[in-house]
């Protein structure tokens, strides 16, 4: 599975959204499932999928689908 597929899968599973919703308008609280609980599940999903440990600032600044792609670069993950 490519990094993009792994990344997308975490969003699809965490927020029960369809793949056409995976774009810049998917942001924190834009769908009901992306609340603080969903956020924590999503971060845990990404950490598991890419075998990384994210830092506090990256977790709380991870505010959208597109911002996340930038954040993961810091951990050597190119989406």
């Amino acid at each position: 599975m490519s990094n993009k597929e792994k990344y997308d899968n975490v969003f699809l599973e965490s927020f029960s959204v369809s793949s056409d919703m995976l774009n810049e308008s998917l942001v924190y609280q834009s769908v009901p499932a992306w609340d603080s609980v969903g956020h924590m599940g999503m971060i845990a999903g990404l950490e598991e999928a890419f075998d990384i440990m994210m830092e506090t600032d990256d977790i709380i600044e991870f505010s959208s689908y597109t911002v996340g792609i930038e954040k993961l670069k810091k951990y050597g993950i190119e989406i």
Partner: protein
Amino acid sequence: MTTGIVGDLGADRSSIIVDGLSTLSYHQLEEQVESLAGKLPQRELLFLIGSNDIPFLTCYLASLKCGAVPLLLGQGLASEHLDRLIQTYDPRFVFLSDGASWNRDGSKEEWRLGEYACYRRERAAPKVLHEDLALLLATSGSTGSPKLVRLSLRNIISNAESIIQYLGITADERAITSLPFNYSYGLSVINSHLRAGASLILSNSTLMEKDFWQQIGNHRITSFSGVPYSYDILLKLRFGQIDMPSVKTLTQAGGRLDQNKMKQIHAICREKKIRFFPMYGQTEATARIAFLAPQDIEAKLGSIGKAIPGGQLWIEDQNGQRIETPNITGELVYAGSNVSLGYAECSADLALGDVNHGVLHTGDLARMDAEGYFFLEGRRHRFLKIFGVRVSLDAVEEIAESKGWKCAAHGVDDMLVLFVAESQNRHPNTLKADLAESLSVHPSAIKVRLMSELPRLKTGKVDYQCLSRML
């Protein structure tokens, strides 16, 4: 007119009340409250639906001041539940923020405050409200259960003063609201800090949001509060590495904190020189009942501590006899002036006086050790705490049934499990989505398990003990 719950100390200091839009001194807050209290009816029922902000705080305080009786409800309450509560209690006024959806038939906008409007319901029947009744809180907020807790001004003030005493809250504190206003624990933070004349930062951000941590830094916040789930988030955020030098006190309530987590959090707090207080309480006792002092955590890991100042705790057996022998499990019973007047299940109940007489059978099973520290062991009634909020399992089954699902609700705190017989022709994920929406609970906290049929006792009732073994 009553004296209200706000202490005098705040006005002498530079204490402030802040929300996302404005900053008020205690003096300005008092002026706003006075002016609004003039517009509110004395002894009428009103619903306040909102979040942590100055208009909501003002309306709450003005109600207490003029003797109007508010029911506090959260912004996220599903409109079907709000409509049902309105039908059951028939309030004269409904105060809620613009954009909230509800059935406003027969009501007209009377006045506005910030982004809130107050509606008058012309056809509301006159009601008898008992003279001691000051405030109503929901027992199981998200299920829209009509069961409410009736509280007096004495309850609110007495609990606030106990909290001030054991946490040592002074006018120099600056607390941020990290829990909802309508939730008894969240409300107790607001009441105790106002009474102590402290500064309050009204925020609706969660610990997962950057905005929350910015406010901690900008306002040099000295304390915040959390349910067990908030501490899961804190640990996930690498609590130990978060820089928050102004924070001196953290409190936890809203369900039992796992011993291991208590240990981890205590260790990090000690390093950061933060006082950490695990606590226990119930809406039926206004909020707080017991607390464990930071210096006792190590020796009494997993304990809820001892009764708050002015209160008393003991254990009773099934016959209502006090158990004096240590470490025998029985029902936890509390006595204190913060014990509510009783419940209300319909509007006629609002005429009732004090039926509890200062004693609360908590429904929690507990034991007391030889040194008098209490430990929770289980619950007598069928409910879970989902992210700190009580959810009745029977109410969940009723909601599922109203949506056409036959199921048995069970689970552990923060994980509701629905056992569904396979014969039903709909996909179980529909049930999950339906309930998540109706309970305003994140779908990840709900699990649906299919079974060929539900296990039943000879009486035909669902065998929950059998389901317990399958969790």
